[in-house]
């Protein structure tokens, strides 16, 4: 009987979350209606049609095919990859809750992306945010085109939207690792909606959007070191503080329940990351192959660095360490992969491996938060290392693709500004978002539920029947 009441309460909370979602959508719609006529800045396709004098843009079937494959690869990173990587790291009683949070957060954000996210991130120009001209993807047809890095070479806008939707989805899903094993499912969803809207979208626009503040400044973030990794890591770290430590943290064993599944997840992440990084080139050409080889080299370097570091400091090189090293290397090379040379990528990977090892041990002790699956230690530290080193190894003298007048000093400053803005912005938004969720529906499950495990109490099922 008590259980029934409990479920009724949860249903109510979920319902609240969906009502908020609906309100947001309606708000978006009304904005769009008022703001549209003036701002419906011609889509690229329309612009091209109005200026027939110029040569018509090229749409290459190879580029289109590559972008569809890349989008699949990033989807693979999240739903099986991140889910299993995270799932293996929690205790068996919470396995399904983590898989479920990753799957549903990803799905939710992809829908929000189509409803208003894409428009706010990539619709129109502005320093901090786009506009509502493309809410509900209005006006976009299979003939609409999106820019690439080459003048007059375009890709269908629909695949650009799909590709970018997976980035938004994975970023929000990454945060799950920080508050795993103790948060309400409904709280995860509500937080994700708020954080996506007020942190992911502005940062994505600032870095990648037309006239975005950091883009205009010249900040280099090829595949999303700041937008995805530092952004998510701050959301996670603040969550670890606000939600609080797991019961028994530091006293009871919280050893991962299946490092085998974690390895499966890490492997899927690595393979999928080729879509994430090389796909961010938007064209299937030499630039994509640079990002591609950098994604192999930096990751391998980081695996070696983490393993060596562990062997030296702790006496043994662990599988979890090597797998974490792979992810650290992937994170670190993400902003750099399009502009550093292969040897630069190896250095970025080595630095990412060593420093993230410190991130999950030394730094973690300093921070004192129960960041369950080390989202900040790996994605935050790796993201910062990558963002800063991008400013170094893009230099042509160090094998990068920077222009002749590339200045490491001034680029480093711009990179640091990007990092700082992301940390402060995401940190602030996250804190407010967690507080709102806490007041509205509560963040944590009860002690009894936490001890019993989230699988059975939040989802009514058990991962393993052995």
């Amino acid at each position: 009987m008590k259980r029934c009441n409990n479920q009724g309460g949860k249903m109510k909370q979920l319902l609240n979350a969906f009502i908020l979602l609906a309100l947001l959508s309606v708000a978006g719609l009304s904005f769009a209606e008022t703001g549209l006529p003036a701002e419906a800045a011609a889509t690229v396709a329309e612009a091209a049609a109005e200026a027939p004098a110029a040569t018509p843009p090229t749409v290459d079937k190879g580029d289109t095919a590559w972008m569809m494959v890349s989008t699949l690869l990033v989807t693979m990173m999240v739903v099986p990859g991140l889910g299993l990587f995270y799932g293996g790291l929690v205790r068996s009683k919470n396995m399904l809750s983590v898989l479920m949070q990753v799957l549903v957060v990803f799905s939710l954000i992809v829908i929000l992306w189509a409803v208003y996210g894409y428009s706010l991130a990539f619709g129109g120009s502005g320093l901090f945010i786009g506009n509502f001209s493309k809410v509900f993807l209005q006006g976009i047809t299979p003939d609409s085109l999106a820019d690439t890095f080459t003048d007059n070479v375009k890709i269908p806008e629909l695949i650009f939207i799909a590709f970018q939707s997976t980035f938004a989805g994975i970023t929000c899903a990454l945060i799950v690792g920080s508050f795993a094993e103790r948060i309400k499912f409904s709280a995860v969803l509500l937080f994700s909606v708020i954080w996506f809207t007020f942190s992911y979208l502005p940062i994505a626009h600032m870095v990648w959007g037309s006239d975005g503040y950091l883009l205009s400044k010249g900040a280099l973030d090829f595949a999303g070191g700041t937008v995805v990794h530092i952004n998510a890591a701050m959301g996670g770290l603040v969550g670890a503080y606000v939600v609080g430590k797991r019961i028994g943290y530091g006293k009871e064993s919280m050893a991962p329940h299946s490092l085998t599944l974690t390895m499966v997840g890490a492997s899927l992440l690595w393979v999928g990351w080729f879509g994430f990084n090389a796909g961010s080139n938007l064209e299937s050409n030499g630039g994509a192959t640079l990002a591609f080889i950098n994604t192999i080299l930096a990751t391998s370097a980081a695996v070696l660095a983490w393993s060596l570091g562990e062997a030296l400091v702790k006496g043994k090189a662990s599988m979890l360490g090597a797998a974490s090293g792979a992810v650290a290397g992937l994170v670190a090379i993400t902003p750099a992969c399009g502009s550093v040379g292969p040897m630069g990528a190896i250095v970025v990977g080595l630095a990412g491996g060593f420093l993230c090892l410190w991130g999950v041990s030394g730094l973690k002790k300093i921070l004192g938060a129960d960041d369950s699956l080390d989202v900040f230690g790996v994605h935050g530290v790796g993201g910062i290392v990558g963002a800063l080193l991008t400013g170094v190894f893009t230099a042509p003298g160090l094998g990068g693709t920077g222009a002749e007048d590339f200045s490491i000093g001034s680029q480093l400053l711009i990179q640091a500004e990007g990092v700082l803005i992301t940390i402060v912005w995401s940190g602030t938004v996250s804190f407010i978002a967690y507080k709102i969720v806490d007041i509205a529906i509560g963040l944590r499950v009860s002690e009894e539920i936490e001890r019993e495990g989230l699988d059975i109490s939040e989802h009514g099922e058990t991962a393993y029947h052995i």
Partner: protein
Amino acid sequence: MKLITAIVKPFKLDDVREALSDIGVSGVTVTEVKGFGRQKGHTELYRGAEYVVDFLPKAKIEVAVGESLVDLAVEAITKAANTGKIGDGKIFVTNLEQVVRIRTGETGDEAL
């Protein structure tokens, strides 16, 4: 009748079973157990988190024998399970008041 309970290293289980068969023991019960003795546990390290594992896996063998076989059985287990290293385990011998074979209803020595 005695009940012999032996805690041995898991990888020695087959050797013990063979040694017991050789002296004419017709049945044993085996359980996977965990415990600690003089053998220290070990430390597991997952990223920054260190966990001390105190309980080590062992195999528990239970065998009921008549008085004539007790010493032989204890000797057989001791020999078969011995590695000379710490953690080889222990053997406990206790009195057994009654044994019943469920299928036939036989009791005492006949049921062994």
